């Protein structure tokens, strides 16, 4: 039965490799082939000279067959010799600088939003229909409705600029000062988490309520288990499966630079902010590189989620075979 899970994992990892390849082909087609006009001109930007364009065309091999172009692009992506023609800076270097900031934001926020979501979701479900549950429903709705650029700006203005409790944006390396690092990240973490807390706690609440009505929960009670054990081992264990799935997917997206707004509002200089800046200037090489970077995390975490799902719910392991 263990090997069933292992076989499932191997199958999923193989299909992940295929998806990653397909994504890279799509990125290549979308940026270099599908748009009309000369890709070298687009890459060089508005203020370009004929020699620059010629050099880019030469470098990327835009007059060669498509599969050679694709190969060149992949080589540039993975060997790190892709540069932005606007800033003359290595794209890989920029991503390498931004990634730890993005990871710090993502990991911290993911822990915070999951912890709060579980606590509030369980509490709401146990108090379903009472005043405290209704208050939490309203709060969750407010949390879901607040855009990060607004919430981030408000928090950083009032708690940062006005009250001076937190720094007004920016990032400090963990190795330079762990406390400063933490201090700079608290507001971004919460800004990013609020939406997820609101959403996840609602999902968990309704899953718990649904699970409590399941026949096997009645069986668990009939067995004479303590109420605590019934709730933890039978209700919560089964209702956590959907939000763990959500969690993996959202975490992958944020790791891949998806928290653009939060990173930008707090000027964290992470991958997401780098991406936003590149889009603002229509700077193609960084856009392509970050798109691949993000896609990579999303695909990987999709796979991780699928495997985790199969580990948590044994029924999935069989179905996986026909799906792939």
């Amino acid at each position: 039965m263990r090997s069933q899970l292992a076989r499932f994992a191997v199958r999923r990892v193989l299909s992940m490799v295929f998806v990653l390849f397909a994504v890279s082909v799509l990125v290549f087609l979308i940026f270099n082939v599908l748009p009309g006009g000369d890709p070298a001109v687009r890459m060089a930007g508005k203020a370009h000279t004929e020699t620059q364009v010629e050099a880019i065309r030469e470098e990327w091999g835009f007059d060669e067959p498509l599969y050679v172009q694709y190969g060149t692009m992949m080589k540039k992506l993975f060997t790190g010799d892709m540069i932005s023609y606007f800033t003359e800076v290595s794209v890989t270097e920029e991503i390498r600088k931004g990634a730890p900031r993005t990871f710090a934001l993502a990991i911290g926020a993911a822990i915070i939003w999951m912890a709060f979501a579980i606590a509030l979701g369980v509490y709401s479900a146990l108090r379903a229909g009472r005043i405290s549950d209704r208050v939490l429903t309203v709060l969750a709705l407010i949390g879901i409705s607040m855009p990060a650029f607004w919430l981030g700006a408000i928090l950083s203005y009032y708690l940062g600029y006005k009250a001076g409790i937190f720094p007004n944006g920016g990032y400090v390396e963990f190795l330079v000062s762990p406390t400063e690092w933490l201090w700079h990240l608290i507001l971004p973490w919460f800004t990013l988490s609020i939406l997820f807390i609101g959403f996840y706690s609602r999902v968990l609440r309704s899953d718990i309520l649904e699970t409590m009505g399941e026949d096997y929960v009645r069986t668990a009670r009939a067995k004479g288990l303590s109420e605590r054990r019934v709730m933890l081992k039978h209700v919560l264990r089964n209702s956590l499966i959907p939000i763990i799935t959500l969690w993996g997917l959202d975490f992958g997206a944020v790791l891949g630079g998806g928290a653009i707004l939060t990173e930008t509002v707090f000027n964290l200089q992470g991958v997401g902010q780098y991406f936003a800046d590149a889009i603002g200037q229509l700077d193609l090489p960084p856009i392509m590189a970050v798109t691949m970077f993000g896609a990579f995390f999303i695909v990987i975490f999709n796979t991780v989620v699928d495997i985790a799902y199969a580990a948590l719910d044994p029924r999935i392991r069989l179905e996986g075979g026909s799906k792939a």
Partner: protein
Amino acid sequence: MSEAGRVPTLLEVHDLEVSFNTEDGVVRAVDGVGLELKSDEVLAVVGESGSGKSVTALTMMGLTRGPNASISGTAHFEGTELIGASDEELRRVRGNRMSMIFQDPMSSLNPVYRVGAQIVEQIRAHRDVSATEARQRAVELLDAVGIPDPGIRVDAYPHELSGGMRQRAMIAMALSLDPSLLIADEPTTALDVTIQAQLIELLRKLNEERDLSIVLITHDIGVVAEIADRVAVMYAGRIVEQGTLDEVFYDPQHPYTWGLLGSLTRIDRPRPDRLPQIPGMPPSLLEPPVGCHFRPRCPHAFDRCQSVPDLNTRLPEAPAHFDRCFLSPEQKRERREVGDGT
């Protein structure tokens, strides 16, 4: 069949009333039910859906407790009063001295745990034994209920077993602490007939070999005939007739029981053009009819039926045969024959 008084009474239920507050009003699901179960006996509680038979059983297990339920009456089981018991007292009884199996074996086991682990969990909730010992016991139990390769199946997930196997696993789990009472709530309804017959056979064997008393809740008269010692017929929250299997089957006293038995298709009779049925619908338990609950559907109703008949013995020759109908025994005999002919 045992003589009254000799065999100790295992379960005694009196005036059990269960009602639920719903958005539409108060549903009186169980309305003054009394039951008595002797040791080693199989009592079948028969009735159609919504007659309150499952609620009665769940209430004895304490599984209907909740903010919307009001429960009154008494249910004595092995020296414990179940209705007023604290949650902790009740927890110690259920799964231990008294266990229950349910209608749908497909959904009654937790899909994410192995079958053996679910049995072990129950054993360890009541006894201080090691995981290894409990697992050993689980294998024995699976063997005892007729699951082949119990040493392998103990590690199977519920979805890897067939419906019949799952119900056997449920029975194994229910037996894990050698209870004196098993409540089986429509245990065969979701299964096909051959599996149904095997399970009923298994229950009968357990009843004989393990001194296990069984309350079998069902709407399947055929199942009742195979296994029950005594029968209680429920209609709209009340017991309308109660007696030994032979008494209820061969000398039914209540018009509802006539209808129930009359609606059976029988292999030893010519096939009817139309399946016989009781006209009308069971009443809503939100607003049950005044007096006898069966009155609106009863072809024999008369003005006395506006008040509630007691559950009484009306036949001098059968002191343990109770019914809830005002008709005199002579009238019943006369009319039943007429009703039977259709």
